[in-house]
């Protein structure tokens, strides 16, 4: 299990940074929205003031960390780096494959990634889990509740691929303006 200690081992410090960051981002983004007046609040009114509130709270929480020694728990706490990378990744892989290659492949890939975080890979358990979960996905969700999954890639692979590419291209469009 990979784990590392935070350099500044203080929860309050980092919580404050997160709050501050979000607050600054909110205020920054809200510049583009008309503020309006109190009587006729514009779309920027509420977010701007919330952003400042967030900055205030962040400053207090973060500032507090300089006056309090980190607790034992804060010093020894470890981040579950491997699961932190693998769990969201497995969700993302499911999402990226479901419309193109279909349910079977998506579920399989997701399970492989999820299981990669476990020591001692157990092939039998994995197979049982895969088969059971796939059956639930097909019979309960696809057939029973009518979630429109493709089982395989037979249908509209091209269309789905096109959508996927356009979604993946979003960061570039954002960067270079469209």
């Amino acid at each position, binding site marked *: *299990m990979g784990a590392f200690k935070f350099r500044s081992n203080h*929860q*309050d410090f*980092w*919580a404050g940074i*997160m*709050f501050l960051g*979000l*607050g600054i981002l*909110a205020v920054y*983004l*809200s510049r583009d*929205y008309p503020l309006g*007046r*109190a*009587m*006729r*609040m*514009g*779309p920027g*009114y*509420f*977010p701007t003031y*919330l*952003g400042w509130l*967030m900055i205030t709270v*962040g400053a207090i*929480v973060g500032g*507090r960390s300089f006056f309090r020694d980190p607790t034992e728990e804060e010093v020894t706490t*470890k*981040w*579950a780096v*491997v*699961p*932190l990378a693998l*769990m*969201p*990744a497995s*969700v*993302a892989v499911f*999402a*990226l494959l*479901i419309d193109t290659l279909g349910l079977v492949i998506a*579920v399989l890939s*997701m*399970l492989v990634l*999820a299981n990669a*975080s*476990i*020591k001692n890979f157990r092939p039998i*358990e994995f197979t*049982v*889990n895969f088969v059971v*979960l796939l059956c639930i*996905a097909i019979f309960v969700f696809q057939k029973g*509740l009518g*979630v429109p999954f493709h089982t395989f890639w037979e249908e509209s692979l091209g269309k789905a691929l096109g959508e996927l590419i356009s*979604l993946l291209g*979003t960061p570039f469009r*954002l960067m270079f303006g469209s």
Partner: protein
Amino acid sequence: MEFINDIFGNLIMGFGVAVSLENLLYCFVGCLLGTLVGVLPGIGPVAAIALLLPTTFSLPPVGAMIMLAGIYYGAAYGGSTTAVLVNLPGESSSVVTCLDGHAMAKNGRAGHALAVSAIGSFFAGTVCTLVIAFLAPPLAEVALKFGAPEYFSLMVFGLIASAVLARGSLMKALGMIVVGLLFGIIGTDVNSGMSRFTFGLPGLSDGIGFVVIAMAFFGLGEIIKNLETPNDQRQVFTDKVSGLMPRWVDVRDSAGAIMRGTVIGGFFGTLPGTGPVVASFASYAIEKKVAKDNSQFGKGDIRGVAGPESANNAAAQTAFIPTLTLGIPGSGTMALMLGALMIQGIAPGPQVMTARPDLFWGLIASMWVGNLMLVILNLPLIGMWVQLLKVPYRMLFPAILLFMCIGTYSLNNSIQDPLLMAFFGFVGYAFMKFGCEPAPMLLGFILGPLMEENLRRALLISRGDPTVFVTRPISLAFLVLAAASLLVVILPAVRKKRDEAFQGDE
């Protein structure tokens, strides 16, 4: 007298709705699924409801709410089963149950502990169903007179109270509320039609679904946290559970505890932010004080199970009062219920009772039916739940993960929601590691848009004069309450007590 007649008339009408074959089925499925998820440690009630919420979208509103309510208290029942048998709370409101419940199980009295907790919960559920039926109509009557300033101040009070009573640092809880409010802004502003905080992503123009946020913070974040400790060496109490029939001695010994637990829970449930967790802790503390001989507490005293279990179930029920009558949720789970109402196209608030009496009273009646079902369902099925507990976490979490993927995908049949969930899973885990509780964030997220709207209206009415919040008496009262609850926590003496009350609640 007429008032009472009205209520019974309404209750009978509600039972008419609740015992229709269809709704009984929804209630049953809800209770069963809820217990199932509640039994599994490592997945809390918020994640459970979020996980199962998409399956209710296709149901009619009444059926959907009944099923969700079933999931909600099913999870509460299931949580205590795990607490007794595995010494792991299935959810945080069962933390105290572990103390004496598991001690009883070790002494070979698991059956008695489970039976008493079922009886206590059922009694509390019955009483609190009646309490809701009596309290909700007058409260809704008052709430109908609220204008925008009152609502805004009420929300401020609700949010602050939830921060005050949340576990851990007050400032960080307040911070998480603001985080939730900010997340709630993402999307198109209803008034100006302007996209806010969407980063140019067309998919964000409708905002982030609350199911996505809830699953990310409570489901995904929780899974990552559970995987921090690689080996799941759970001590499942595998001996077969016997003595499920309660003994007369047990009932006699625990009757007082059950009644006190019901009162305590019923009271705490109505307060924003407290709910089942605080109620169960308070009940345990009081039982320990009241008992003449409290030497057995922690070693398997039945009162230590009966009191908290009744209290957490009572609080779970009465938590519906502010949610249904004011449209102000007091906890993460209630925030989800409220969100579910909105998805069904019902604007939450005092008008629900008059506009949709079938929904309101059907739901209340179904609470009692659900409680009855759980008693009948739970005790005979204990064997099955025990088997389920033997499934190791390494097989369980991929399943939860997959259901979260499918659940978020099915919200809009779009891959954007699972991707968003993956992203917010990171954020959620980081906040957790920095000691920030996710529940206040969820409350802020749900209430954010409502708060902005009411602020806008209030300031419009007052022609931009912010003193409107302090010149209207009811609004002022809420703000004073909010300030008072903040002050109280900041006072060092109370703060110490609060920390004590949350000790061991991990």
